[in-house]
């Protein structure tokens, strides 16, 4: 438990200071054929310097949309932020001007996307794309200085023979190298916050480990806060200090990672963890599953959004929408009956 305590102490230190990024009650909606649909609701979190926050959930639960909304990167005009605040070091970036927002994007906040092949420009060399970051954010730099800094950056993220790589196109690089280039671009301006949207999902296990280690090293060096979106619970366990679990557009549980994994309170979190085979599950055994499917946005159940799949659902789960309740100091859960549920009793409700 020593690592857990150590984590906790760094966590407390960080919290004592002003949080780096505070998101409060963010709501995002999309215009569709079925009218305006709310994709994310009351999305809030705090991120301190040096902290890694994991956002987990299944496809369509709103994790990527929430991250895009932080920097107002939603597809316009369909996507729209309806409410909420995104406070970065004391300023609400929803109230600042376009020009200032451009400076924040890629400046104070770096962004790594899931698929580097679609995020990088296929018709520009790596060197040109990196130099673009300097043109936008450091207009005074001479071209020699830009080149030397680019080389330094590529070397720092572990790209072998960086001088040669400046002149190649993205398709000439392997998946792991492309992801490293993306990370290099995100780090150009030494951001305070790094948002990583599924940074390792498309990669092999060994390359994933390389990228995760790289992010850990960079974080130690620059003390940046990292928001890491993923659907892989093992990556969260390995990498994050705290975690948000999302389901159908809402955060259903949040807390320090050790606490959530040891003592998940929301039935969805419990079932999600049980359904994942680990290196300890007996081979060829039947895995617990979650019955039913994620509800679609235009047929959202009333009350608790998990009520139609929850084995513990009761009458009031349909009528009452659960608010966040404190389990302890920093563990919160959105479930009306969490106090009555035993932790980890998921095996008993196997379907």
């Amino acid at each position, binding site marked *: *438990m020593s*690592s*857990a305590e150590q984590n906790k102490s760094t966590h407390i230190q960080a919290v004592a200071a002003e949080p780096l990024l505070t998101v409060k009650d963010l709501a995002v909606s999309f215009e569709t054929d079925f009218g305006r649909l709310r994709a994310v609701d009351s999305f809030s979190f705090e991120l301190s310097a040096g902290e890694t926050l994991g956002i987990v959930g*299944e*496809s369509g639960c709103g994790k990527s949309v929430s991250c895009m909304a932080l920097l107002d990167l939603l597809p316009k005009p369909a996507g729209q932020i309806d409410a909420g605040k995104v406070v970065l070091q004391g300023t609400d970036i929803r109230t600042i001007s376009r020009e200032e927002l451009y400076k924040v994007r890629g400046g104070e906040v770096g962004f790594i996307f899931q698929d580097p092949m679609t995020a990088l420009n296929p018709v520009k060399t790596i060197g040109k794309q990196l130099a673009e970051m300097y043109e936008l954010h450091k207009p005074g730099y001479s071209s020699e200085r830009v080149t030397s800094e680019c080389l330094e950056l590529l070397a720092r993220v572990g790209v*072998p023979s960086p001088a040669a790589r400046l002149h190649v196109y993205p398709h000439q690089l*392997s*998946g*792991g*190298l492309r992801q490293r280039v993306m990370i290099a671009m995100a780090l150009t301006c030494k951001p305070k916050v790094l948002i990583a949207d599924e940074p390792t999902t498309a990669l*092999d*296990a*060994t*390359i*994933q*480990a*390389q990228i*995760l*280690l790289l992010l850990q090293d960079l974080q130690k060096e620059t003390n940046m806060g990292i928001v890491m979106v993923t*659907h*892989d*619970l*093992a*990556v*969260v*366990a*390995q*990498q994050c200090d705290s975690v948000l679990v999302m389901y159908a557009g809402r955060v259903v549980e949040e807390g320090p*990672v*050790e606490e959530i*994994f*040891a003592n998940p309170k929301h039935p969805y979190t419990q*079932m*999600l*963890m049980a*359904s*994942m*085979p*680990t*290196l300890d*599950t007996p*081979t*060829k*055994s*039947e*895995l*617990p*599953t*979650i019955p039913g*499917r994620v509800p679609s946005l235009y047929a959202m159940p009333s009350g608790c959004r998990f009520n139609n799949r929850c084995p513990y659902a009761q009458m009031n789960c349909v009528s009452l929408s659960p608010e966040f309740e404190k389990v302890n100091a920093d563990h919160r859960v959105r479930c009306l009956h969490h106090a009555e549920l035993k932790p980890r009793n998921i095996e008993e409700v196997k379907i």
Partner: protein
Amino acid sequence: MSKVMIKAENIVKYFPVRGGIFFREIGRVHAVSDVSFEIAAGETFSLVGESGCGKTTTARSVSRLYDIQSGKITFDGKPIEKLKGRDLRELRRNIQIIFQDPMDSLNPRHTVRQILKEPFEIHGLLTRKEREEEVLKLLDLVGLPQTAARKFAHEFSGGQRQRIGIARAIALKPKLIICDEPVSALDVSIQSEILNLLLQLQRELGLTYLFIAHNLAVVRHISDRIGVMYLGKLVEVAPAEELYRNPRHPYTKALLDSIPNPDPTKRKQLQTIEGEIPSPRNPPSGCRFHTRCPFAVEKCKKVDPVLTGKEGHDVACHFPLA
């Protein structure tokens, strides 16, 4: 030991690289080099390894989707590497494939009924009425409602689409099913449903699986035996549990050390191998892993190690780990 369903001996598959004005062969991508393995009836054998290591090519070669350059393949006691015409079609009935992305492998213009009837039409089996009944039986077997028959692939979720892909694969009652990354594109909770379905069908229909995946926890869960591939070579073969408990090839060890532990209190320092997989156009001499192996010595650069071992745990390394 039950009978051998499929046996591959020293199979070699390379793809020529052509170029220049006369479009001559200017190089070769060595996708599968001298790979041998066998799968017993009713067993699940998995191939794991990084992208580009030849897992899929191996699977497609043994199912005759690719013609191999050399080697022998025996299916159900008969050599199949040279089959043609009617015999080959007969073989296709017995070997079916489940693909990674069901959206790409299901015809978007066909209803599920048409998709599931097609295998019978191609092989000229059953009467029209029997086919109709068979479709409903198949849907039932993979846990889809009968109303699904009228719908199109795009009307389903990813997990349901994969069920349709599975229904099509089992339609002709094959003996061997090749599962090429069947759960990689699915969410965690759906993934467990599909794994359960595959295990259930194996029990009920006595299927043999050749399973390909890169998620090592999933592979361990579903497999009886596992083969680890690196750059077109099989470097280690062992029973599932044994491989995870006692990896003997440095590459297998590195692969296992790179998986994060899903328990935050047992967080480990991730270990990883430096560098990336070399190009299969120009594979390293000797042991193909020597360029990244922390224990490599002079011998590894010169002599290609042979896959040997005892008690079903084989390894291709001059200095296997204890």
